[in-house]
């Protein structure tokens, strides 16, 4: 009975890491597409988003099965409930990567100086997601805590991009739509950072029993 439980928990762990890796891939692709003005990226990111959705369902069902059939306690219970929460954030990250790729198709391949402002933001967001997944993989609460701190970098980046875009609209009102699309993309990256923080906090909870947000 116990070994079956451990096996299931191992499977859950695998699926979580795989989903995390897919999230990393999806945002990395979205960020590259933005810099290269690659309008075809949406078609490549969307399947990954769908895979993440599929993984979310699988992970949820594994979690519920474990909770109902094995009635875990203590650390195991934390691990499973944290996985249930984390997968929601991962799924959102996947969705947002898809959204970014979709907006890029509207930009018609246009890229410029403004995109580079977003690039540093995107890099920070990707680092946060990678670190939060790494924290999960290594069960490292310290790394998880560092993710929360890094969120300020992304927030600052967003403010900077916002100011640049305001200036851009003021100087050249014809670029309004372009600027707003970029703002949306920046906002999505900022949201991805927030989701990474959520994941990191749940990692902290799973390991230490204390939720990082408290």
């Amino acid at each position, binding site marked *: 009975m116990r070994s079956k439980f451990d096996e299931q928990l191992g499977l859950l*762990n*695998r699926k979580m*890491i795989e989903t995390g890796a897919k999230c990393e891939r999806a945002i990395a692709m979205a960020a590259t597409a933005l810099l290269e003005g690659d309008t075809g990226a949406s078609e490549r990111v969307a399947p990954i988003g769908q895979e993440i959705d599929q993984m979310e369902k699988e992970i949820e069902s594994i979690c519920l099965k474990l909770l109902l059939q094995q009635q875990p306690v203590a650390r195991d219970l934390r691990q499973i409930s944290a996985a249930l929460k984390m997968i929601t954030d991962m799924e959102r990250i996947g969705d947002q990567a898809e959204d970014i790729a979709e907006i890029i198709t509207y930009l018609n391949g246009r890229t410029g100086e403004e995109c580079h402002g977003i690039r540093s933001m995107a890099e920070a967001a990707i680092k946060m997601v990678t670190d939060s997944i790494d924290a999960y993989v290594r069960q490292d609460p310290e790394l998880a805590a560092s993710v929360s701190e890094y969120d300020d970098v992304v927030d600052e980046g967003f403010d900077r991009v916002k100011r640049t875009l305001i200036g851009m609209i003021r100087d050249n009102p014809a670029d309004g739509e372009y600027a707003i699309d970029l703002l949306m993309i920046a906002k999505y990256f900022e949201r991805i950072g927030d989701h990474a923080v959520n994941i990191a906090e749940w990692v902290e909870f799973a390991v230490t029993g204390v939720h990082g947000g408290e």
Partner: protein
Amino acid sequence: MKKRIFRSIIAVAMTVLIAGFVLAVSFLYGYFRDSQVTQLREELAIAALNVNRYGEEYFDGFDSSVFRFTLVAGDGTVLYDTQASAENMENHLDREEIKEAAESGRGSSERYSSTLTERTFYEAVRLENGDILRISASQATVGALIIGMLPGIAAVILAAGAVALILSERMAKKIVSPVNGLDLENPEKNDVYEELAPLLTKISRQHRQISRQMAELKREKDEFDQITQSMSEGMVMLDKRGFVLSINAAAMKLFEVSGSPEGRDFLTVDRSPEMSRAVREAMERKRSEFRGERNGREYQFIISRIDTDGETAGVVILCIDVTETAFAERSRREFTANVSHELKTPLQSIIGSAELLEAGLVKPEDTRRFIGNIRNEAARLVSLINDIIRLSQLDENSGPVPSPETVDLYGLANEVAAELADRAAERDVKVTVSGGPCMMSGVRGYLYEIVYNLCDNAIRYNKAGGSVEINTGFKNGSPVLTVSDTGIGIPPEHQSRVFERFYRVDKSHSKETGGTGLGLSIVKHAVAYHGGTIKLDSEVNKGTAVTVTF
């Protein structure tokens, strides 16, 4: 074992005790019975004698508490009884002892009382007058005897049991303690029961066998580790669940893991979707491979399934650094594409001009110009092909092996300067040669190519009114050639690539400046042939200096 011995001793003790008891009781009981019967007979004989002599009166005042006498007439009627009145008693003729006595003169029998707790012995004898005299006595039966003795028996059994308990406990301990004290590390040094000797010998033999096998295994593992650890290729072995069995140093560096991940899921080492897919594919289809980038280098990952006895045991991941190979492949691909393109361009131009001439569409005064065009393009084609031939010779080290001779770089520089003087003048560039004689051993043709191509480039990518300086000399005992110009320079991002074949900084203006795009590539190969190094210093719009140290 101790328990077992203890239990056996107790069981034996109890059995002996009870058996002794039963034997004693039954023996004693038989003995008492026999003596009682004898006593009865004796009493009866005396009584019969007296009754014969004195008649019934003999019994008067007889104490009947021990024996009971009954006088029965020959027809069975009771005449007298010492304990009961004769009138109330029934006819006794059917009693066994009476019947026997009536027939044979003597009879005996024994009967149990209704409660079975008493047994009565009867002895009868026929008197002279035909009457029968009977004597009887009662005795407790065995059952009654035992019941009566029960408290005593119980006490004895308890006492004996207690003693047996203590003794057997001690004995069991004593028997077992040497076995418990066996030194199993050195089985043959024990001196206990000889019954254990074969077992100990066997243990000792297996001991030796196991340690030998362990040593063998350890040696093999060490050997394996040593080989894999010193491999430059990364190698990871996974079991069939995808857990890391072993990982070598190169792979740990490649995947950037700090602690040993052995015993953990490989996903915690590398979680890229390509790797997961490839591992899964290898598990299913025996083999898979893919190329991927890790730490800025390109790796070929080869994953093979390991089967033992027809069952999947795991997979081995081999990581081979193919950065150079991939680069070489790419340049070869580009080279082929470039060569065809470069060869085609002048040919197209030749064909175009020729067609126009053939169709008579060229005015007579232009004919000369068109033919000149064809000649120029053909010459360009020849020089391109010459370059390619030279390059491939350098590449393959084929063709006639050039013999090294002593060459003066300074003289060579002057020769080149003279050769290129016309072209330099055309572009308004001044060429100067400085330094002193610089004798070195090398292949004259190749060295000439080096100086010529560097100088040619310095003139070609120069500005009007610019200058080119060729300097030769020794530095730290090695011959050094420096060609510096005041030209357009090379942007930093292109500097590492200008030595590639057909690589051009400004792709759109290659026609204008001429050149085949192979010059620097030839220089690179020729310098490499002489075991030298090239250093490139360049700043955009300031100029370029190429230093070759042999």
